[in-house]
């Protein structure tokens, strides 16, 4: 990506280049933020909640978060469940197969820290962040699909703040409201 970075830096210095950069960033936001296809790394009971999240009651397809069976199609790995030392090489291998840019969500206490397997256990990796760079942690044992939804929206917040230029940090408003956005509505009416 060094070539893209150089072009972005040159554009930033050039007169009027910021307009081009902003436009590219807007397209990139739209493309990446609303099509976070997920790699469901479900190894334990959290996978049940992850599956439920894809079905009609919660319907993550409306966010563009479509579960894909192939890591080469996906943008975000959702690690849902206990990762054992035997499973760890497979997780890293699947992560390495995902194309950049990629993100990781640690879903549930086991993926966050080892959870109930933190103490007195010989076989469990104490948190998937020992293997992968994690962007969003979701607590719960297991977390409800609403929590996963909140995590996905927060991840989208993070994705939308990225720019093609490494020196720029952006805060933009998307099509759908986010948890961090101020409440909307007419003055005097409940948000």
């Amino acid at each position: 990506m060094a070539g893209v970075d150089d072009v972005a830096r040159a554009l930033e210095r050039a007169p009027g280049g910021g307009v081009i950069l902003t436009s590219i960033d807007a397209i990139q936001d739209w493309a990446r933020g609303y099509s976070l296809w997920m790699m469901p790394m479900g190894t334990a009971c959290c996978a049940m909640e992850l599956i439920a999240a894809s079905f009609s009651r919660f319907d993550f397809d409306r966010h563009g978060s479509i579960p894909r069976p192939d890591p080469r199609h996906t943008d975000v790995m959702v690690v849902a469940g206990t990762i054992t030392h035997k499973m760890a090489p497979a997780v890293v291998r699947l992560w390495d197969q995902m194309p950049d840019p990629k993100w990781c969500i640690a879903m549930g206490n086991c993926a966050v820290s080892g959870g109930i397997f933190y103490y007195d256990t010989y076989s469990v990796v104490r948190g998937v962040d020992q293997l992968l760079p994690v962007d969003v942690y979701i607590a719960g044992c297991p977390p409800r699909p609403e929590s996963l939804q909140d995590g996905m929206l927060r991840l989208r917040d993070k994705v939308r703040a990225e720019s093609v230029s490494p020196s720029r940090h952006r805060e933009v408003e998307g099509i759908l409201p986010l948890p961090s956005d101020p409440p909307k509505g007419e003055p005097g009416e409940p948000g």
Partner: protein
Amino acid sequence: MNITELREHLCAQYPDLCPLFSIEFGDGVLTVPSARMVEATSNLKDLGFDLLGMVTAVDFGEEFELVYRVRSREMHVGLFVKTRVPRDEPRIGSVVHLWPSANWQEREVFDLFGIVFEGHPDLRRILLSDDWVGHPLRKDYEDPGLIRRPDYL
């Protein structure tokens, strides 16, 4: 068939197994010396015990106790088979040739307790990675990465 009828049936068919039979907590238990394990399991298979439900082990310090649960679909009765092997020489005959379901069960016991099943077709680790050192369910297993639960939790 209940346990008492099973005892009578077993004693009629195989009198040498009769003194090994006992009833513990309402379940039939056949406590076999490890040297006679192959012969006794073979006799049980002939008697009609066609299902092997479980193989596991218990660490008693000086020796390991192996526990097999067999069941007969025809007689509608189950039976525990127990045997003990010394810790220094944990070897026992495999029962895979009688019950193919013992294959992975014996691999699991080998993986976690280090008991060698002689005659097993493919005895290697099944749950832990191949380069694992030690057998975690032994009482004297020491894991360098283990974090002990503190007293206040």
